[in-house]
């Protein structure tokens, strides 16, 4: 798959230089077209053809996310993201303080670029819909928690929650479960612009990380309500992250897990009515 590749190209941190090197590596190895952040900021039309034709890969150096913010400001949908600092941490690598890339930094950049290429097949392919369809009932009756101008909905039954606003719905056969974020969270975040899907095959502990959702307001890590292995992801959210806003409990599901020990996990989960009480308290604290 080819991308339109937008690095932050930040000059004030080694990670910014790392973003540039990853981008150059990908372009030179035939995996996309470079979008210069400075030029696209000044002359968006210059890159209109490539941005119109190819999915957008954003490479941020650090958590300031300048490239992501730029893409959002230009109204461009992000298909894929990479953050150099986070990836380096995950790999146990250090970027150093020098603003010029040394041999270690360049090696890390090429490793990250190779990772993008390697994972493209997984991220780019449609989710295993036949797996993900495994007998999940649509949300039925919902509790409505009113606060100021907001109305937060919570399914009465069929869903369990953790106090980190992530739901789980166990499939009819009890072996798998879908997870997603609650209506409360999607309203707090407002327009969700990107969903970071977990990697298929990843083993997740209860309360471990299982992807993230992002809006202009915040990035929220999904705290997994259950332990298990990721067997499917909702790749429809790559093109339409706003589905999480529209249908958080149905089409906005994020991942499907093969359950490891749901009986034990249940001890630390709460049902719909209990979660409604939790968000009532949270909503009052926010105001």
């Amino acid at each position, binding site marked *: 798959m080819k991308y339109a590749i937008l690095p932050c190209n930040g000059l004030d941190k080694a990670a910014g230089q790392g973003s540039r090197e990853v981008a150059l590596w990908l372009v030179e190895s035939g995996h996309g077209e470079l979008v210069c952040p400075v030029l696209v900021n000044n002359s968006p039309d210059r890159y209109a053809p490539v941005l119109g034709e190819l999915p957008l890969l954003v490479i941020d150096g*650090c*958590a*300031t996310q300048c490239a992501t913010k730029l893409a959002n400001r230009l109204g461009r949908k992000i298909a894929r993201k990479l953050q150099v600092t986070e990836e380096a941490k995950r790999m146990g690598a250090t970027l150093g303080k020098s603003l010029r890339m040394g041999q270690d930094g360049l090696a890390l950049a090429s490793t990250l670029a190779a990772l993008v290429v390697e994972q493209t097949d997984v991220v780019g392919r449609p989710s295993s819909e036949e797996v993900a369809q495994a007998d999940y009932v649509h949300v039925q009756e919902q509790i409505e928690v009113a606060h100021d101008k907001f109305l937060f909905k919570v399914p009465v039954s069929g869903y369990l929650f953790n106090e980190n606003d992530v739901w789980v719905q166990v499939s009819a056969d009890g072996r798998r479960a879908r997870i997603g974020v609650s209506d409360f969270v999607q309203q707090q975040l407002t327009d969700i612009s990107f969903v970071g899907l977990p990697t298929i095959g990843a083993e997740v502990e209860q*309360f471990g990380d299982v992807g993230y959702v992002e809006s202009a307001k*915040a990035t929220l*890590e999904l705290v997994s309500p259950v332990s298990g292995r990721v067997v499917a992801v909702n790749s429809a959210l790559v093109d339409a992250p706003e589905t999480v806003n529209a249908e958080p409990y149905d089409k906005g599901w994020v991942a499907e897990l093969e359950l490891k020990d749901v009986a034990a996990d249940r001890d*630390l989960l709460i049902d719909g009515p209990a979660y409604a009480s939790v968000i009532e308290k949270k909503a009052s*604290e926010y105001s």
Partner: protein
Amino acid sequence: MSENTFMGVPREKVSWFPTIDYQKCNYCMECDKFCPHHVFERREAEERKLVVANPNNCVVFCRACAKTCGPDAISFPEKPAIVAMIKRIREEGQAAP
């Protein structure tokens, strides 16, 4: 019983809160601007111009402030240790007469 709880455990017994690495922090204050729970406090007159003043306000397992930190100066405890701590406290609570 504490009013502020997480999964039935009094919040002050769960040691989940951010730690600032002052070697890295550049006092951009993005974390403080973001956090709606007032975990951080600014101390303009002091050398450390930002401190974790209200650790128990921090939402357990939330790391959203660290996601705003360009210099990567904010860290949190390892989650598995905190989960184990919560389970232990819950069990002790159930075992108590």
